[in-house]
């Protein structure tokens, strides 16, 4: 092992460093947020939309978006859904445990490009954590944007993430939050329906708005159509993709989609670039 230089968004670590878990927070039955602390004396910086490779020792690595505020110091947040061996090991970590971290990797949300107009942030399921850093930025620089809309969908009310934060965001007059679930029991007073159907009634100017979107690919496919029907051009629709990322440093080729490597050229893409490749049956 050679000494690692100080990481930044422009020069990520390429070998895992041992970070300490400082806190864990259960967001839902299967989703946990880890607060991680870099090795002593090392500063970590990232941009909204980027991800780290995390590995609980002995279980392999997985790409996990950074879900905290890029403008604040302190622990680095990752929100992880327990869907397999590696993520189960990560979700089982406790304060004081160690985790292998390398990053940050990938492209970021085009927040400066979106200034001066409306922004529509769209998230489905575990897609909310990857856009949360962008929401923090939008709210911290609220005067640079016109209307800001957050559309969020989940499977059931119990699967909604960051519910306390959603409540606070809903109470703001400068942020329009619409939440929907696929199904709910009788006591639920919120919306039941699918995310693409929220587009038609969301209050934004499609002629100038920029859309940031993360979620299951099928959800994004239908939501892109709804945005296009509303009049949002492809070059202002941005989505975060995570297909088969394994090395995160453009070496293994597992995440190749047409001419792109998701880890190097993504995860955040402009839909205009990605559209020819997005719906290929085999890629």
């Amino acid at each position, binding site marked *: 092992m050679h000494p690692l230089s100080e990481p930044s968004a422009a020069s990520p670590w390429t070998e895992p460093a041992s970070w300490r878990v400082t806190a864990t927070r259960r967001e839902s039955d299967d989703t946990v947020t880890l607060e991680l602390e870099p090795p002593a004396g090392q500063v970590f910086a990232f941009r909204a939309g980027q991800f780290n490779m995390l590995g609980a020792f002995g279980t392999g690595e997985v790409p996990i978006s950074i879900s905290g505020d890029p403008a604040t110091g302190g622990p680095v947040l990752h929100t992880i859904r327990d*869907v397999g061996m590696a993520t189960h090991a990560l979700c089982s970590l406790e304060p004081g445990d160690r985790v292998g971290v390398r990053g940050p990797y990938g492209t970021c949300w085009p927040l400066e490009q979106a200034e001066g107009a409306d922004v529509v942030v769209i998230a489905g*399921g575990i897609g909310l954590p990857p856009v949360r850093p962008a929401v923090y930025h939008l709210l911290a620089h609220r005067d640079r944007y016109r209307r800001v809309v957050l559309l969020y969908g989940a499977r059931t009310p119990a699967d909604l993430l960051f519910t306390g934060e959603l409540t606070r965001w809903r109470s703001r007059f400068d942020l329009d939050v619409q939440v929907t679930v696929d*199904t709910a029991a009788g006591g*639920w007073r919120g919306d039941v329906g699918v995310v693409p159907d929220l587009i038609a009634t969301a209050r934004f100017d499609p002629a100038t708005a920029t859309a940031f979107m993360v979620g299951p690919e099928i959800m994004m496919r239908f939501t892109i159509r709804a945005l296009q029907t509303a009049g949002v051009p492809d070059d202002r629709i941005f989505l975060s993709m*995570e297909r088969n990322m394994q090395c995160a440093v453009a070496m293994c080729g597992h995440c190749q989609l047409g001419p792109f490597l998701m880890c190097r050229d993504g995860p955040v893409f402009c839909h205009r670039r990605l559209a020819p490749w997005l719906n290929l049956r085999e890629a």
Partner: protein
Amino acid sequence: MTLEPLLREHPFLTSLEPQYLALLAGCATNVRFGEGSFLFREGEPADRCFLIREGKVALEIAAAGRGPIIVQTLAAGDVTGFSWLLEPHQWQFDGRAIEPVHAIALGGACLRGKCADDPRLGFELTQLFARLAIQRLQATRLQLLDVYGNAHASAV
């Protein structure tokens, strides 16, 4: 007082020509429902459809031992459905106001009669409700796909 101005404002009918709005106004009634009350119940005759102006309606299905399950919510600008249009003219779900609801009720028999008298109106209304049916079908397919379930899950 005619309800034609309210019909003209409703998003569902914006593409309808003015003379047809005047015809529909003859079938229209202004209605209100308090929170928790039912606009309609499964199995009852679907003798009206509702154009929602304010409030929120949950389309529910009752399941023994589980309580009601909400399959969709409808809000201002939405329409409750098309059971009035096709036989057996029977509601397939419960429609419950989860917020106070202001709506325009259109009588089903009245609408069908006007459509029979004026096939062009019938075609225009059928187009509107067919578009609504497709939108609901696509949403239902997405819900059935369970896109947020484990089969589609990634960790990022």
